[in-house]
């Protein structure tokens, strides 16, 4: 494999793998109104990096541990909707980001590519990162496929699902842990500030064209993969940052889906 191949192959594989599993997980995020939750996980993950830097453990592992831990702490929030959870999530989200930034700057003699974490550094993705992402993607895909109906059932109504005998709390926990895992790994690709864009925009673009949850998930994954291809292509040609380029491409596809939808609606009403 020559050097040129190496350069485009790893970022491409990482991006495509993430986009494939972000389709179904992002759809759940959209259906269950967890967008802010995903944001909070991503922001809080910076604390994980700080922890990793200070204790000198593998940074990817620190990221995953950090966001999984935060997800577990935030889990009770989901069930207490009366408590103004968006305010609380906002506090946790921004304070963890701020504490992470401050602590990192105080850590003497340690240099961390902060911009790389905030905005992602897709082109710096290495084989080991792709391996992590591949393992996580397989885990996420297998678990989602295995519990697909039950997850849809708890998304439609936790109450009805509980009466039908689904283990609602365990399924919620599983979904949140998978989300934390994806957020932690996607950070390298699109960065802390844009992680939830990768989760939300493709399903939003898929929504108007889908008639079933499965169609929406499939279209969301496809939109995500096309966004990665377009974004990387743009990044190579115009030397734009790769992660933001992917998000811009996804946003363009979302706008395109709106146009398609309004065309279809006007044809229907005509």
């Amino acid at each position: 494999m020559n050097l040129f191949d190496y350069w485009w192959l790893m970022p491409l594989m990482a991006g495509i793998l993430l986009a494939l599993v972000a389709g179904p997980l992002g759809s759940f995020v959209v259906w269950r109104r967890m967008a802010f939750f995903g944001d909070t996980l991503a922001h809080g993950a910076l604390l994980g990096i700080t922890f990793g830097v200070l204790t000198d453990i593998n940074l990817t592992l620190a990221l995953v541990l950090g966001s999984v831990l935060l997800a577990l702490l935030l889990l009770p929030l989901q069930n207490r909707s009366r408590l103004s959870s968006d305010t609380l999530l906002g506090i946790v989200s921004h304070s963890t980001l701020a504490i992470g930034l401050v602590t990192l700057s105080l850590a003497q003699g340690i240099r961390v590519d902060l911009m790389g974490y905030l905005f992602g550094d897709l082109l710096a993705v290495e084989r080991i990162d792709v391996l992590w992402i591949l393992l996580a993607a397989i885990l996420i895909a297998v678990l989602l496929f295995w519990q697909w109906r039950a997850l849809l059932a708890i998304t439609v109504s936790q109450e009805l699902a509980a009466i039908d005998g689904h283990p609602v709390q365990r399924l919620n926990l599983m979904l949140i842990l998978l989300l934390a895992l994806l957020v932690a790994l996607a950070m390298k690709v699109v960065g802390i500030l844009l992680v939830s864009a990768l989760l939300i925009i493709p399903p939003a673009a898929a929504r108007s064209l889908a008639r079933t949850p499965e169609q929406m998930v499939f279209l969301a994954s496809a939109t995500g993969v096309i966004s990665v291809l377009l974004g990387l292509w743009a990044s190579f040609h115009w030397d734009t940052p790769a992660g933001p380029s992917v998000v811009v491409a996804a946003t363009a596809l979302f706008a395109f889906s709106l146009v398609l939808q309004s065309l279809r609606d006007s044809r229907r009403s005509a």
Partner: protein
Amino acid sequence: MNSSETTAVLSASHLQLVRQHKSVLNDISLNLKAGQIITLIGPNGCGKSTLIKVLLGLEKPDSGTVTRRTGLRIGYMPQRLSLDQRMPLTVTGFLQLARGASHERIGHWLDRLSIRALAQQSVHDLSGGEWQRVLLARALLIKPDLLVLDEPVQGVDVQGQLELYRLIPQLRDELGCAVLMVSHDLHLVMAATDEVICLNGHICCSGHPDTVSLDPAYIQLFGARQQQAPIAHYTHHHDHQHCADGHVEHRAPGKDIL
């Protein structure tokens, strides 16, 4: 009627529940037998929905016990279920998520409830009455031993309400199941129910619907307004009781079925 039909499918004894220093359920006991239709009635905030949740096991009472027959299959039709618009879902897709759903059963209940035409429609495009029927179909898919209906006619026009209440005793006869309903209007449910429990934190009065409608506790709770309900003529049909085996038992007026 054999003995297995007379044993309770669901019973509760001395339920107590306090939420935020306010007594929501106070010493509630009830017994629901196979083939019996009980309606819970009471003003808003009287604890109807909370009681349903406790009986279904979704909430734990502070004290008291709920006993469900082992292996009891419960079909539950919630008061309202608002689906997120962002989730695309057809009626069939929604029904397939229910426990006990199969192609044949979904087809059967779509036909039985006259909603076959909705099968491939999006759940977001349904009218209130259509959506209620879909929710009812969902509750029936499991072949319930106990059908629980929380305000089944919300958002349904009067004609639809009467039709739905006519349907419930028929469904009971077809399935041989017990039915627990919640309603806020006694006169609408009179013909469809065997026993009424009037709830206001505690059980104010209970018994045959004719008896309850004349009970001072009921009149005090609801005032005379409901006495003049436009569909009050519906009450005169009710001088008999539908037994679980389908035969009709005539009774002297006022006799309690407890």
